């Protein structure tokens, strides 16, 4: 693969806690990805549209407000509407364990809580894109 992996880091909903999103965005850039960060207060439509325009391989959603079970399916729907079914979707934030299986069932490739090492996220992305780690 010649082209750099492109990742959209996005914050859906009203939650403004953007520390994690920014740290991840920078860590993924340092890991060699092309990273686009949307900023806060994005609607599912805005995120899917940005994913389409930026032609990304991965969408990372950061949600700390507890609204993940409402927002994640809507983002997935909007991605599908735009034919972006194969985009790898990751979710990070304050996510209770009991919600994780449901998110994975919806098609999310990985869920990451506080205390995640950035290398774990890179590993998940590489695996989901079917690439071997160097």
């Amino acid at each position, binding site marked *: 693969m010649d082209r750099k992996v492109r990742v959209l880091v996005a914050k859906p*909903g*009203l939650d403004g806690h953007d520390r994690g999103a*920014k*740290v991840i965005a920078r860590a993924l850039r340092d890991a060699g990805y092309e990273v686009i960060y949307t900023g806060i207060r994005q609607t599912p439509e805005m995120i899917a549209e940005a994913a389409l325009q930026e032609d990304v391989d991965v969408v990372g959603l950061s949600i700390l407000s507890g*609204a993940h079970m*409402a927002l994640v399916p*809507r983002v997935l729907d909007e991605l599908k509407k735009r034919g972006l079914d194969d985009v790898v979707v990751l979710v990070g934030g304050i996510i209770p364990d009991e919600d994780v299986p449901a998110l994975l069932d919806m098609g999310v490739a990985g869920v990451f809580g*506080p205390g995640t090492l950035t290398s774990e996220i890179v590993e998940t992305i590489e695996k989901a894109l079917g690439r071997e780690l160097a």
Partner: protein
Amino acid sequence: MPLFNEEHLQRLSQTFNRWKDTTLRKTLERRPERLKKFMTTSSRPVSRLYTPLDIADFDYEQQLGMPGEFPFTRGVHSTMYRGRLWTMRMFAGFGTAEETNQRFKYLLEQGQTGLSVAFDMPTLYGYDTDAPEAVGEFGKCGVAVSSLADMEILFDGIPMGEVSTSMTINSPAAIIWAMYIVAAEKQGYDRRILRGTIQNDILKEFIAQKEFIFPPEPSMRLVTDTVEFGTHEMPYWNTISISGYHIREAGATAAQELAFTLADGFAYVEAALERGLDIDAFAPRFSFFFNVHNDFFEEIAKFRAARRIWARAMKEKYGAQNPRSWMLRTHAQTSGASLTAQQPENNIVRVAIQALAAVLGGTQSLHTNSMDEALALPSEKAVTIALRTQQIIAHESGVANTVDPLAGSYFVEKLTDELEEDANRYFRQIEALGGVIRGIETGYFQRELAESAYRYQMEIDNRERIIVGVNEYVAEEPIEIPILEMDPQGYERQVARLNRVRAERDNGAVEKALRELEDAARGDENLMYPIIEAVKVYATLGEMMGVLRKVFGEYHEPVFF
């Protein structure tokens, strides 16, 4: 007058050098130290040993003074916790007003001494529960308050004239405060006796938490309107809680938290002075809210430095004469960002250490986080343990028996001095940028925070910093933490109430009140008065904020990472 005399210091210096060349050298040859460099949670280098040589010009009266007196380094009260313990104030709120009302009553029964309200995201952003922007957010990280009707239920059966209530609300602070005032008046209390705090610190929202709505200028006008209103009408109310908490949680170091918070405080002082208010009338009602993180001594030093810097600035720079204007009174909360999702019970210990630091730092009130907060909203059991942690510190540890027990520790005094110097350096930088608002608009603060947050994460990733259960002592065990169950019908109940309010109120009166609010917003009169009128006729939060959004516009921050 320096505490240590020249001759004594010289002798000590000789002793120190002898020790270094003999005892210490032998030890290091036999056993090198565990780490190449030792540092605080904020990456501040820490020396092996602190002696009077590190604080050679230490002047007790200049630097510390006596408790309850300028510069208040040792605390704002002369007897501190011997007179009265700190207020144990647990931040709570979720779901509907009914559910949170139950939690408040539970906490008061458990011996909590003040209330602290968490609002949900839509409320924080000035939307009614049923607004399209609010989808999925109802009641998740606080209670929904869309109109006076919700506020009345939230405090039902709680005597609003007798409790003190802190409300974490910023962009819509004026409106939520007005709802509180009107609800208390309906319970039969005079607004002049009400005690409590509105956070009302919009600058740290732009810097860190990002719950801003309007551009900085009208946002500052709203803050100054509330300060002016409080100064005239609410003598026991803290009109702003100038907050470092969120700045720290967003990634700041202890020094950045200290400096940016105080810089915000100075900006509010200057705005109120520009409005023509007398400093000694409003400054005593400014309060603070600091984070208390893992690094025990640095945190204690931060509180002590904060009091000293504020007192000096208020007296010497702004010319305040009332000692109450010099006093930095603060609330503290243990660090949410320091909690781990892994092995959550370990968080009980983290919180205990942080809480102890807040008490040794001389806080006036304290929230202790619950062990399950890295996973979800705290359960009742987790909250109770967190409250008990404070009660154990208060009654069993002995630290409340004497005032500022760590004063005179060479290390703590050195750290206190260093933090003050760091803060002064940041103040000069901010001034050179053109002030706090300019710093926000150019992304200065956001960049500083992002940089520190990234460095911290990399230290963990590279195992330069050990976090138990995260990158060391890792255990693959299932997490067994009971998760708070919320009323599944809560949303429907809240929306039904909102619709009932809209149907049953006098809609002509609401329209008139909203028109008057709009006119006032376009002019320069104090907005608290028309807001109170609109609240009384049950205008909703979303309607009032809608009017202000129309007049003031919405702010979009520069995006980068």
